[in-house]
Each structure stands twice: as structure tokens, then as C-alpha cells.
């Protein structure tokens, strides 16, 4: 079974071969990257069959020790069990589809070789992440994915927007990663290891569990673009569309959800962390859905939709069902990557991302529109497309847990989802044609979309099988919830049709904007998140850093003087020490600092004398401390 190692290794090798080559040589070797991911796909299917019929436990495990810290060994390992087997197939299927698609989409790009190299590295990291049997390995893969995401968003780095977006994405997710790193520190301090077996079976007290869970939740919120750390994902759409499909829709952004699923026992031990997860999910699902309603850029609609759907996964997690979250993760990966690939064809054909300039594409792009329809119906939650089943499962879990408020919000979010899906569909495909010269995508782009469309159409019927495979139950939808969610979805679609779809209706966002100027302004400005961050966080940080860099010497002055004064009063009070020497030294240093202080305005003055005084002051403090502390 050691061949499982090859699954992440093949794309990694493709990267290692491609990366150091020249641009021309890389471009020639692109088929190698595709072959590697197809190889991984084959092996993943084999791995899936090896786990079949699943139900429990790990089938294979291997690890290496990377370092010994004292008498503890730090290991990195891979393990194959039902959940990783499912994720392997998802990542490799979507990965292979995206790579094949990119052959057509990126073929005019002269840096296509670099694109494929990074895509391969990303695939390798994501596969390693899902196979990893410990939090450390998961974290390392997580960071490498972040790096690849940065490189791919900034792929067109000669343009301004991608460069800014790439840095924003890296730094925002890095803020989230801080949570992961701190969580790792606490986990190691508490459990003494990183591997899932030890950590998850550790006897967590509620307090520590809450701390770890919240830190991990924060990391997951960064990676999975949950409010308020979602700001990077819409900007990330500046990258190539197929990369968005793979990284910013199907796989990497789902890694946050995956982390919470992995660490779920800790969340359960905490309790309160689950409630917070639930509300993060609810807020995100609804607010991002609302934002998707006012975007004109087709990719931005999909980006906000992704954020919103990830919110649904967090809702499932918060309601206590990691299975439902994973289920939605799987279905979403297929249908959302399908939608992004479809958007890629549309953008290629229409030469714009602005939906206001599209229309009538259904006739011109028949295959794309059919595939896109499959994805759209899944996203809207219409039976029998995949999104219906998994979203229904989430709603059912909420009802089962008696979370009625949450149920209502989730339902509203589902309604909003259906609305913006309808808005997108009618605008792009059925509105009056604005362009004549439109062409269907190349075959290499259509085949992957058809594959994904078929999967999206049929995968819902395998829900209970998937549940058995995972060792949990995924029941068939109950008629009641199914009816409610279908009504919500149809309602959303109908409203969308009413506003955007009717032949007579030239109603557009412009009209809505005039009727509801305030609401529209808030949405169009994305609730002012970017502005707030730019102003407070970045501004605050800069101010703090500046302040420290030009730290006013008076502070140091004050400390030294204060200590001196304190010391004087202590020795005057008859302290048992022979105060005179120390006193003298302290007074001397203090007066020297004071004398220097007149000239010294800042800490880094450039004056040797003031530096010497500062050093002397520090030494005096040290001496005083040792003397006060005693032996």
C-alpha cells in the first residue's frame, strides 16, 4: 500500500522537474504535469477502492521522524482512511479537470509552464493535506497551498490588480494562520504531540479545548474566507479563472472546513466553539449571499457565492454534523469548479467579465450553457442536482438540533442563493444578445465541464452510500425539509426571473439602485470591510510600528529615572543592602541619561553617547534586579 505516497508525490515531482527549467522548456513539458495529475487520479481511485466499503478506521499509515526534540519524536505521516479517500478523489478529479481545461484556456499564455508547475505544487500540497495524519503535516501543506495561491493570484504580476490581490490574500490568510500556529503550540504543550490519534484522544478540558478550537476556527475562517476574514477571496479572482476554480472554489478554500472536521472532537469537547462556528457560518452564508446579488463581475458573483457556500459548511459544523459539512464540501467542490470553468469559457467568448455586457449566450454556447445549468441548479438547490441533497442535509440537521433561528437564516440564505443564481443565469444566457462574434470553447475545455456536470447531476443519489462509507449516516431527505427548501429555491429563482428574466423587464440593478440607494450602497461597498481594514488595521499597525521605531527616549528615560528613584527610596528606608555603591551607580546612570535626554529625542538617535547610556541603563537595571532578587 505504500504506493499511496505517490498520490501527492507525482504532482510534487512534476513541480520539481518544471520549476527550475527555462520558460520554453517548461512550456514543452506541460503534458508531464497533466500526466502526473492523471496518475494521481488513477491512484486515488485505486485508494478509494482499497478503502471500499469503508465504514471505519484507517487502512494504511506511514510516517517518518523529522526531528527529535528531547525525548520526543516529531513525525510527519500519511494515513488513508475513508475521509481522506473521498477527499483524494475530489481533489484529483477537480484537479485533473482543471488541468485539462487549462490546456485550452491558457494555451496562448507564454508562461503556461510556470502556471502548470505551481498548479502541480498546489495539487501535491492539497493531496498531502488530506492524507496527513497529524496537525503539523496538515499545517505545512496548508502553508504551501497558501504560497501557491499567492503565486497564482499574482500570475499576471505585470498588472497592478493581481499583484495587490496576491499580497492581500497572502497577508489576510497569514493572519488566520496565526491562529493555526498558536493552536499548534497549545496542542503540543498540552498533548505533547501533533498526530491526530494522540491529540484527538487526549483528555481535553473544556477550557483548553475552547482555546484550541477557537484558534483553529480563526485559521479556518482565514483560509475559508469567512466573515470577517473573507476580504481576500473576491480580490483573488484576479488570478487565472481555472486556478480560481481549483483553488478558490473547490479545494484550498475548503481546507478550513476540512481542518475543523479533522479537529472536530476538540470542538465537541468545547461546546461553545461549536456555537460560535454556527454563527460565523450563518452570518457569512447570508451576508456573502447578499453581496453576490449586486456584483456585475461574473467571477465576483461566484466568489461571493463560494464564501456563502463555505458558510453553509460552517453552519453544518456548528450544528454538530461534520458529515453534513463534508458532504456539502464534496458536492460544492464539483459544482462550483464547474461554474468557474463555465465562467472561463464565457469570459473567453465575451471578452469581458462584466455581466451587463453579456447576454444571449445560451444559443451561441450550447454545451457550456447546459453544463452551466447543471452547476447553477445544484447551487440553487434544485432536485436532483447535487447541491440540493447536501444543503437539505444541513437544513435537516439544523431542524433536528432545534436550531430554529439558524434554520430560518439558512433558509433565507438559500433563497438569496437561488436569486443570485437566477440573476446570473438570465443575464448571461437569456438576456438580449449584445455581441455577435461568440464562439464555444475548445474541446479540451468542454470535456472537463461535461464530466463535472454529469457528476453534479448524479452524485446526490449516492448520499447514503457516502454516509456509510464515512461510517456516519446521511439519510434521504425528509419530505418536509425538502419541500421547504425547494420552495425557497424556486421562490428565489422566480424572483430572479421576475427581475431579470422576463422579456419585457429591462429592470436591472440600476433600477434597484435608484429605489434602494442606501441598501445598495452598503452592499456595493461590501459592508465597508476593506475600507475599515485599510483604515484601522493597516493604519493602526503602521502607527504602532512608527511609534516604536522612533520611540521617544523619554520613555526609556522615565523607566531608568523611575527605577533610580524607587531604588533611592528603598535604600533610604533602610534596606539591608549596602546601598551606597548601587545608589551611586544608579544615580550616575540616571543623571547621565537625563543629561543625554536633552539632546536625545529618539531612541535611535545616532549618538554614540546616548547609546552607551542606554546600554549602561540596561545593565544597571539588570544589576538592580539581581541585587533585589537576591541569591
Amino acid at each position, binding site marked *: 500500500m505504500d504506493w499511496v505516497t505517490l498520490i501527492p508525490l507525482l504532482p510534487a515531482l512534476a513541480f520539481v522537474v518544471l520549476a527550475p527549467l527555462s520558460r520554453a522548456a517548461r512550456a514543452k513539458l506541460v503534458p508531464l504535469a497533466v500526466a502526473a495529475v492523471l496518475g494521481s487520479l488513477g491512484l486515488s481511485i485505486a485508494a478509494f477502492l482499497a478503502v471500499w466499503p469503508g465504514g471505519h478506521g484507517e487502512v494504511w499509515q506511514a510516517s*517518518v*521522524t*523529522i*526531528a*527529535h*526534540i*528531547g525525548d*520526543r519524536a*516529531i513525525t510527519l505521516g500519511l494515513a488513508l482512511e475513508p475521509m481522506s479517500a473521498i477527499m483524494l478523489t475530489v481533489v484529483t478529479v477537480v484537479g485533473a479537470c482543471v488541468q485539462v481545461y487549462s490546456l485550452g484556456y491558457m494555451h496562448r499564455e507564454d508562461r503556461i509552464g510556470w502556471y502548470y508547475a505551481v498548479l502541480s505544487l498546489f495539487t501535491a500540497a492539497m493531496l498531502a493535506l488530506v492524507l496527513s495524519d497529524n496537525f*503539523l503535516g496538515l*499545517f*505545512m501543506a496548508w*502553508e*504551501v497551498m*497558501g*504560497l501557491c495561491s499567492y503565486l497564482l493570484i*499574482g500570475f499576471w*504580476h*505585470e498588472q497592478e490588480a493581481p*499583484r495587490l490581490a496576491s*499580497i492581500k490574500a*497572502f*497577508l489576510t490568510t*497569514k*493572519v488566520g*494562520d*496565526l491562529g493555526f*500556529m*498558536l493552536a499548534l*503550540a*497549545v496542542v*503540543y*504543550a498540552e498533548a505533547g504531540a501533533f498526530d491526530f490519534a494522540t491529540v484527538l484522544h487526549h483528555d481535553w478540558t473544556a477550557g483548553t479545548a475552547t482555546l484550541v478550537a477557537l484558534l483553529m476556527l480563526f485559521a479556518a475562517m482565514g483560509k475559508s474566507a469567512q466573515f470577517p476574514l473573507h476580504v481576500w477571496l473576491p480580490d483573488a479572482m484576479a488570478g487565472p479563472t481555472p486556478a480560481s476554480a481549483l483553488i478558490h472554489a473547490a479545494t484550498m478554500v475548503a481546507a478550513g472546513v476540512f481542518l475543523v472536521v479533522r479537529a472536530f472532537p476538540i470542538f465537541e469537547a468545547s461546546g461553545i466553539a461549536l456555537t460560535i462556528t454556527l454563527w460565523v457560518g450563518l452570518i457569512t452564508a447570508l451576508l456573502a449571499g447578499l453581496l453576490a446579488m449586486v456584483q456585475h463581475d461574473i467571477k465576483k458573483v461566484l466568489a461571493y457565492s463560494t464564501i456563502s457556500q463555505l458558510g453553509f459548511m460552517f453552519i453544518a459544523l456548528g450544528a454538530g454534523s461534520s458529515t453534513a459539512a463534508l458532504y456539502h464540501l464534496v458536492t460544492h467542490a464539483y459544482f462550483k469548479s464547474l461554474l468557474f470553468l463555465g465562467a472561463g469559457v464565457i469570459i473567453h467568448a465575451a471578452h469581458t467579465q462584466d455581466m451587463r455586457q453579456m447576454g444571449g449566450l445560451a444559443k451561441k454556447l450550447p454545451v457550456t450553457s447546459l453544463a452551466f445549468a447543471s452547476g447553477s441548479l445544484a447551487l440553487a438547490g434544485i432536485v436532483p442536482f447535487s447541491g440540493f441533497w447536501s444543503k437539505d442535509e444541513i437544513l435537516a440537521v439544523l431542524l433536528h438540533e432545534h436550531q430554529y433561528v439558524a434554520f430560518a437564516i439558512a433558509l433565507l440564505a438559500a433563497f438569496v442563493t437561488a436569486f443570485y443564481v437566477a440573476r446570473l443565469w438570465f443575464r448571461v444566457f437569456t438576456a438580449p444578445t449584445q455581441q455577435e462574434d461568440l464562439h464555444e470553447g475548445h474541446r479540451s475545455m468542454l470535456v472537463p465541464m461535461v464530466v463535472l456536470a454529469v457528476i453534479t447531476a448524479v452524485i446526490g443519489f449516492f448520499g447514503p452510500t457516502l454516509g456509510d462509507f464515512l461510517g456516519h449516516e446521511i439519510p434521504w431527505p425528509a419530505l418536509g425539509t425538502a419541500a421547504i427548501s425547494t420552495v425557497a429555491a424556486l421562490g428565489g429563482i422566480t424572483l430572479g426571473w421576475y427581475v431579470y428574466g422576463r422579456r419585457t423587464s429591462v429592470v436591472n440593478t440600476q433600477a434597484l439602485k435608484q429605489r434602494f440607494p442606501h441598501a445598495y450602497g452598503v452592499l456595493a461597498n461590501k459592508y465597508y470591510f476593506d475600507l475599515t481594514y485599510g483604515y484601522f488595521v493597516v493604519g493602526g*499597525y*503602521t502607527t*504602532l*510600528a*512608527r511609534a*516604536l*521605531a522612533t*520611540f521617544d527616549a523619554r520613555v526609556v528615560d522615565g523607566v531608568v529615572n523611575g527605577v533610580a528613584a524607587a531604588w533611592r527610596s528603598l535604600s533610604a528606608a533602610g534596606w539591608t543592602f549596602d546601598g551606597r555603591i548601587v545608589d551611586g551607580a544608579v544615580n550616575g546612570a540616571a543623571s547621565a541619561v537625563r543629561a543625554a535626554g536633552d539632546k536625545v529625542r529618539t*531612541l*535611535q538617535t*545616532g549618538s*554614540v553617547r546616548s*547609546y*552607551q547610556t*542606554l*546600554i*549602561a541603563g*540596561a*545593565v544597571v537595571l*539588570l*544589576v538592580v534586579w*539581581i*541585587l533585589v*532578587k*537576591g*541569591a
Partner: protein
Amino acid sequence: MSELLLLTPELLVLFGALLALFADKITGHPRAAAHIAAPLSVVAALVAALIGTRGGIFAGMLALDNVSVFARVAIALLLAFWLHWVSGRGTGGERSAEAVALAMLSAVGGMLMASARDLIVLFISLELSTMPAYVLMGYRRGDARGLEGALKYFLLSMLTSLIMLYGLSFAYGISGSTAYADLGAVDAGTLGQLAIAFVLVGLFAKLSAAPFHYWTPDAYAGAPASSVAYVSTVPKIAGVVALVQLVAAFAGNGGTITVVLLVGSLLSMLVGNLAAYPQTDLRRLMAYSGVAHSGYILLAAAAGSAGGTAAVFYAVAYAVPSMAIMLLGSEEGTALDDLAGLAARRPAIAWASVVWLLSLIGIPPMVGFFGKLTMFTAALDHGLVWIVAVAVTMSVVSAGYYFKVLRSVFFGERLDARRATRSTPAVIAYAALTVVTLALGVLASPVLEFFGLRF
């Protein structure tokens, strides 16, 4: 005589330094001596260091254990890279033979310091490693700012050296011996603690750890970037080894050492990471970044023998990319704006700089990640959870200013069209430093095994 064989690497480097200085007087080919013969002797030293027999010399005044051998190899390797870079470019164009010789002499001091087991050897080798550094920092004779920086470095370094010497004399007074082995006798009494504190002050200053870091930004900002590339990296490795071994030797004190280390660590991390952000000169930025990295290292040094080994490893993990960045700064110009548009001009070098900077932030699979991982886990094993939390937070904050550098590299065009001087050896040096940054991260375990290092 057989004992002297253990010192083959040091002797070879010393020989190379003398060659660089005097061979041209005999042969009349200054460049050949300084840029071919001297680097070759360093390569020979590197090979000898890699063979790395362990053992004690001079009745235990020097001892080569796994950590010392590792540090010695790292110093020789970085020296070789630096010399190779200089061979293509020269330092300031003139008198490059002197620069070569000075760096090599400093390296000899560093290599000796890494194996010192005696306070007197420690002090002499410390001075040997720093003295040439003063000259290197003030290398451009006509440049008043550089000379001022070098003078500052000299004066402040002297002050802290003397404080350290004072501490060493206390230690000798208490234990009656200068051997590390007897320093356990420096008990927890007040004088013993003062001795320890004073010694640490000296080492903090060498490592530019707060609050003894003041010389660093000024001295770096005045000096040629190529000198900074050397002085900010190679002597630091030796300093960390000395620190770690002294901390282990002073084992018998009542916790003073830990407190001093942790306070120094905390201050360095905060000051370094926060003050680096507003800097606009690469040298100043890297000076504060160095302060910050010393903070992480002090944290590990407070975490027992596992932490000590991790600290030494990290000193190397820091030195490699840091040297690369400063060398690049020397070629392209040290204002951050000078780097603007580097991605368009030299894409390969720009991507290499991504590797270096990400390693300094601590992103896997670069070596910086592995180094931080081992340091922080060792510290966690010692129960230092809160300060590790600060360190982790600060390493995320550091992404802010390292990305400022990357932003310059990938953004905009350089305003003045001055063509940066480039050379093939320099490119080879960048490639080598990049490979080491990556390889040491990916293949850390086999490398550690080779040197017999265990955390």
C-alpha cells in the same frame, strides 16, 4: 601534533587569509591570490570540516562536538559563498584582497569560538571574529557615514566586550578556573548571577539582541551592503554557539539565566519586528529583522539542550537567506525603491528572493520553518507557552515587512536607469544560497543525522 590536525579547517582558512594578503606581493597577481587561491583554501577547509573528527584539543580548551562541527561547516560554507560573490564583484572595487583577508580572519575567530571550552579562548576568539568586522563595516574610506557607523560599532562593541570581560573575571574568581567544565561552580550567589548577567550582556550585544542592539541599524546603514552581508550572518552563528554552550555550562544558577534570556528574547522580538516595518532602507530593515531573529534564538537558548541545538540550527537557517538578501542589496542598491521592478529586470533572482524572504518569515518547506518549528517545540517542552505565543505572533507580523521588500521587487519600475552591476559568480552565489535555503528545509533530517545533531 595529532591534536593540531583537528584544527585543519581553521589553519586552512588562516593560510588562505595570509595568501590573499601577501601572495600578490610575490606573484604580482592580486586578483588571482584573493579570488582564486583564498576561496580554494576555504573550500579545502570546508572539506576538512565536513570530515569533522570530534575530540578535545589543548587540554580541553577547545573541543569539537557535533554542534561545533555543524557550526564550523556552516561558517566555512557561508564564507565560501561570500568569497565567491566577492570574486565576481570586488568590495567597493578596490582593495578587495584586504576585504577577503579580513572576512577570512573573522571566520577563523568564529570557528574557534564555536569550539571554545574555556573563557579565555572564548574571549580571544570573540575579539578575533569582531575586530576584522569593524574594518569591514568602515570599508569605504572616503565615506563619512560608513566610518561613523563603524566607529559606533567599535565603541559600543568595546563597551559590551568590557562588561563581558568583567563578568568573566567574576566567574574566574568564583570557580578558580577558566574551563567551562568548572563553571557549574558559579553558584546561585549574587556575584555568580552578576557574572552570568554580564557575560550575557556581551553576547547579547554580539547577537544584536535588544536592549543592546542600538549599534546595529546605524552601523549597517552606513556600511557597504556586502560587508553587512558578512558581518550580520557569519559571526552570529559563532555567537549563538558560544551563547548556547555558556548557558549549558552555567547550569547551576537559580534561574537568572532563563529570566535574562527570556526578557531579552521578548524585547528583541517586539523591537525588531515592529521597528523593521517603517524602514525604507534594506540594511536598516534587515538590521531590525536580525534583532527579531535574535529574539527567537534567545527564546530557544532558554529551553535546555534541545533548545540550544535548535538555536544553533536556526542561526544558520537565518544566516543563509539573510546573507543572500544583503548581497542582492549590494548589487541592486539598498533603498527599497532600488529593488523596484527587479521582477521585470531579473525574474529568476526575483523569484529566488521570494524563497529567501519566505524562509525568513518561516513558511514551509523553506529552512526557516523547520528551524522555527524545532525551536518553538523545544520551548514548549520547557513550558514556555506564552512566550512561544508571542514569538509565533511576531513571526506573522514579520510577514508585513518582508512583504514590503517583495512588493518593491514585483512592483513598479525603477526610476533611475542606472544599470546595476551584475556578475556571474554573484548569480552562482544566489543560486547556491537558494538551494541551501530549500534543501536544508526539505532535507533537514538527513543533514541533522549527518552531523549527529539531536534536539
